[in-house]
């Protein structure tokens, strides 16, 4: 259970969220990607108060958020290509407009030759890369990833984190929950958020007072 959280994320920043298992990392991420509402408190995202926003308003905000789920959540009967294309199709892009970016993204995550493979035929690492490609294909303003490198080797983990870094340099705010502290060093300027027993440690005060510019705020 989360309690006493009060923080702001500076737009365009890169955050690692750490903490022991059961500390509430996944719960906090769910609040960020609008899969849950807080029982009390508020969440302000993209300049809009969303904790009590009508549910009809939420899909438009969800499209501005990329999510890498811990369990991938790929659609089993769709190919890797179609899984990656989902956010674009949901946003109304035509098949023609979807083709090139999806191929490019699949190449980027090293799965160009697995485009037509379905998730059950992919390894855990390959599935994770498809999930990451799907999360970033629509150039989200906020990218939330729950243990995104848990199933890949160190080289692929660094490659994926550098993809997140590249997105971040384009302006995407990135929040990555991870146990792998070695990743933190691979992103210069990344900030650390540590959750313990549902509370957020902020020894430097940077989370409560990030560099000025409206960003993402949450308090509970």
């Amino acid at each position, binding site marked *: 259970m989360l309690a006493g959280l009060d923080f702001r994320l500076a737009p365009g920043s890169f955050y690692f969220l750490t903490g022991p298992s059961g500390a509430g990392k996944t719960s906090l991420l769910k609040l960020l990607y609008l899969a849950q509402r807080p029982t009390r408190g508020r969440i302000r995202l993209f300049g809009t108060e969303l904790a009590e926003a009508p549910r009809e308003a939420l899909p438009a905000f969800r499209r501005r958020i990329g999510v890498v789920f811990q369990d991938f959540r790929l659609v089993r009967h769709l190919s890797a290509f179609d899984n990656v294309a989902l956010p674009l*199709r949901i*946003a109304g892009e035509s098949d023609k407009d979807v083709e090139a970016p999806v191929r490019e993204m699949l190449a980027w995550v090293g799965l160009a030759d697995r485009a037509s493979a379905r998730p059950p035929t992919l390894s855990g690492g390959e599935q994770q890369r498809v999930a990451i490609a799907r999360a970033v294909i629509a150039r989200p303003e906020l990218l939330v990833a729950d243990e995104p490198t848990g199933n890949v080797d160190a080289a692929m983990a660094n490659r994926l984190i550098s993809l997140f870094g590249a997105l971040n340099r384009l302006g995407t705010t990135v929040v990555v929950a991870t146990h792998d502290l070695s990743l933190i060093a691979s992103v210069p300027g990344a900030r650390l958020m540590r959750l313990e027993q549902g509370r957020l440690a902020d020894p430097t005060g940077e989370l409560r007072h990030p560099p000025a510019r409206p960003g993402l705020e949450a308090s509970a």
Partner: protein
Amino acid sequence: MKAGLFPPPSLRRLLPDQRRRSAPWIVGLMTFVSLVVGAAGISVIGAVRDLQGAAEGRWSLQVTGIPADAARTTAMLAAAPEVAEVKPVPEAELRKTLRQWLGPAADTLDLPLPALADVTMKSGADGAALARRLQAAIPAAHLTSYSAELRPLLATLQGLALVVVGLLVVLAAALAGAVTLAARATLEANRATLDVLHGIGATDAQLLGLVQRRLAIDALVGSAVGALAAALVIALALIPARGLLAGWSERPLLGPSDLLLLILLPFAQAALATLVARWTLQRTLAAAL
């Protein structure tokens, strides 16, 4: 992604094709039963209307005892202002009817047969008053309306028609319930996919379009199959049954307007199924964040 029943193929395949679906069978069975029951009900209602029409203004005269009374009665009725026509039933016809029960003996036995006549009243005439006048003048004469004679049968048929209407309402409710379950089952079967789509920003209208299209197709296919089977049964069983009304009505048991109503019934059921499915889906989706 546009909402609606006809999303493009790239979106249609977002939901897997499930070959073993129950909805078409449920809708097909309901359509079949509804059509057969509906056709039977329409036939009964038509029969009631025909019998009522045929009995309207028609009376039956029976005179027992003295043959002179029969002649007097016929003359009195012919002169009455209420009567349009008096048509005595020939004795040969009476004996022919008796032959059905007594066999050839009906022609030879010296049975005292009553004098019978079919009496047709003028429109709006008070037949009951005439019957009372006649009874007072000639006690052996009895004038009875066909409507009165047919009343128990008509009441039974009207009751039957009401039962049929009630059955159709129950069937529609059962269809709605079955489709609600089928819609929930479809949602449940595709829960993982729908959750993913929901999580990456699909609107309720988009998800509704995907699932509803499938249920609408199921409803249409089921209705079509059920309607075809029902058409066979109606053609084989109900249409020959018009012999029941022989002598009362020349109208076919199911007229063009009745058939039109029956043709519209499967479409109405498919529409009902689609609307119920849509409502169920909307409610279920609205329960999620």
